[in-house]
């Protein structure tokens, strides 16, 4: 299905013709986002979580590159990876141990919650795509990340998980907003916000009594 975005009053930044449905790249990106967001939600091992976050930003980059020039879309990828590196450095500094406890019931609950989010995404994305006139894959990717991010924030007490949840919500929003606004200043400011959140996450991780408070 083609979506023609041609209202210059509402969509000045992106008057382009998109044919995304069936597009291999957007489908691949959605699959990446689906898998990585689920891993981030379930995993208790910080290495796996950060690795999933790295791949999540690849998915975000893939979707944004369908809208923006590759060079501008690359900002999202680079900033995301920088955030991941800040996190991993802080985690290594703190010698954060991998928490490998197998909590079947907890994980099952999280998978069920994530499945509910997927159902909501499938139901809501056509409506969002119609309301804002955006390609449906963009709507799906954006809603998916925002939904999983909200669950991540709401279901965890570990500050690192909450910070990663915030980054996930922001990544989802950025996919959506990339379609609505293509300003370089906004891209730069949102990059600063992402790095700022990662920086705060790293400070939190390196607080002296952090391990006790988790």
């Amino acid at each position, binding site marked *: 299905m083609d979506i023609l975005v041609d*209202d210059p009053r*509402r969509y000045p930044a992106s008057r382009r013709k998109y044919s995304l449905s069936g597009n291999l790249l957007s489908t691949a990106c959605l699959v990446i986002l689906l898998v990585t967001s689920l891993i981030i939600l379930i995993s208790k091992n910080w290495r796996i979580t950060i690795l999933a976050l790295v791949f999540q930003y690849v998915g975000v980059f893939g979707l944004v590159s369908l809208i923006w020039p590759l060079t501008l879309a690359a900002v999202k990828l680079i900033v995301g990876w920088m955030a991941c590196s800040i996190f991993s450095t802080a985690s290594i500094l703190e010698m954060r141990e991998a928490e490998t406890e197998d909590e079947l019931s907890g994980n099952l609950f999280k998978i069920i919650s994530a499945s509910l989010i997927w159902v909501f995404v499938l139901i809501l994305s056509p409506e969002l795509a119609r*309301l804002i006139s955006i390609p449906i894959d963009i709507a799906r990717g954006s809603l998916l990340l925002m939904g999983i991010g909200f669950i991540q924030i709401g279901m965890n007490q570990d500050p690192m998980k*909450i910070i990663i949840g915030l980054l996930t919500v922001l990544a989802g929003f950025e996919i959506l907003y990339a379609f609505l606004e293509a300003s370089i*200043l*906004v891209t730069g400011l949102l990059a600063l916000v992402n790095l700022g959140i990662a920086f*705060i996450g790293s400070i939190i991780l390196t*607080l002296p*009594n952090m391990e006790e408070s988790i």
Partner: protein
Amino acid sequence: MSSPIIWIIYPVIFSLFLWILRQYTVFVKISAVVFCGSLLLTGLLLPINTFINIGTFSFEISDELLILGRRLVLDNNDQQAILFFYGLATFWFAGTITIEINEHFVPIALSIVALFISAIAVEPFLYASILIEICVLMFIPIILWDRKTVEQGVLLFLVFQTLAMPLILLAGWSSGGFEANPTDQALLQQTLVLLGLGFAIMLAIFPFHSWLPVFVRQNHPYITGFILTLQPILVLFLALDFLNAFVWLRNFPQLFEGIRWIGLMIVVITGFLAAFTQDMGRMFGYAVMLENGFAILALSLGNQIGLNILVLSFIPRVVGLSVWALSLSVLKYMPETGFAPLIGSIRNHPIASFALILAGLSISGLPILPTYPIHLMVFENIIRLSLNHAVLIFLGTVGFLVGILRMIRLLVVSNQKEWLFGENWSQIFFLTGGIGMMLIFGLFPKLYFPLLLPILNAFEYLP
């Protein structure tokens, strides 16, 4: 030379310089006061977009700066807002001279003030929400630096403020869309929901208020007081920008009634929570909520009187909250100890305790104190619209006053017989100055009216 360079770029550079020298705390604090004072004076003396001749030398301060394809504009209409923010910063940084505070606070807070000014200057104004978020992100490390663990309040503050930013950005896009297509009712609903949610989260409106009392309770009062005094004022500026920019929004019939209900809800809930709280450390948070409630009620009047009351409320808010925060800092209120050191403190810190009592009574809106004329004007105007609403406001205010009276009881009940002055001379000087300002602004409110009313010149389409 342009005005954004003077009032945004220079302060950021100077704050970096101060941050490098942060271990010389007294020097840094005094330098920040002198620097903000000089920016204040510059704002008073230098007109923007006018040729200035000094002997044979002539120059002009232009009003815009281009950054990444967007403009930062600070023209003569914004000058009063610049004066207000740098005046507030001067006042706030002066208070740090007399108390023990994190060495990072002053340099980073100076950058935050510069970013607040950039939020006023940025065009389109929607980007202000991202700049506010960046301020929040800069502020959190100040709290965390000398802590051993992260408290729930800080995380909630971060989460709520971060979630508000996308909502405001989407609301801005959606508002523009509705202006272009005014028959689209779905877009209208979407815009109103996004706007309402965004501002409700930013201003800690029920049910998004839970972080505020906890945040205040768990952190240094002077540091949290700074952000909780400035940030809501900037968010209210952003709300005025929305009303100014979108004609459909200010002409939307149910908007101001809806805002009034929100304001009423905040005042009533704050009064209820303050009256029954067991933790007096939370009272400062309730004071911020009450002030937000009255500001929203003033905005809800939807006319020039309401807007005048709104901007006039800024100085009583700043004076009341800053004296409150300073008193708590002098009384050594610390997150670890809670309110315990303040019990019976009137016997060993009489001036700080008296200042705290006066600040509490001022925020409650008692006569001869600065907030009284503001609350009275809101009350008078609401009573003309609805007696029931006025009764609710009265009940909310009484509830808050009950909380303040309970706090006073804790401060004055003591087994100690003798009077001691635990404050040092500089603390006595600043606290007496704060008490004096409260009394002067309370008795002669018209002194500051001409300073604040021109702020509204920046919003040319508002009534």
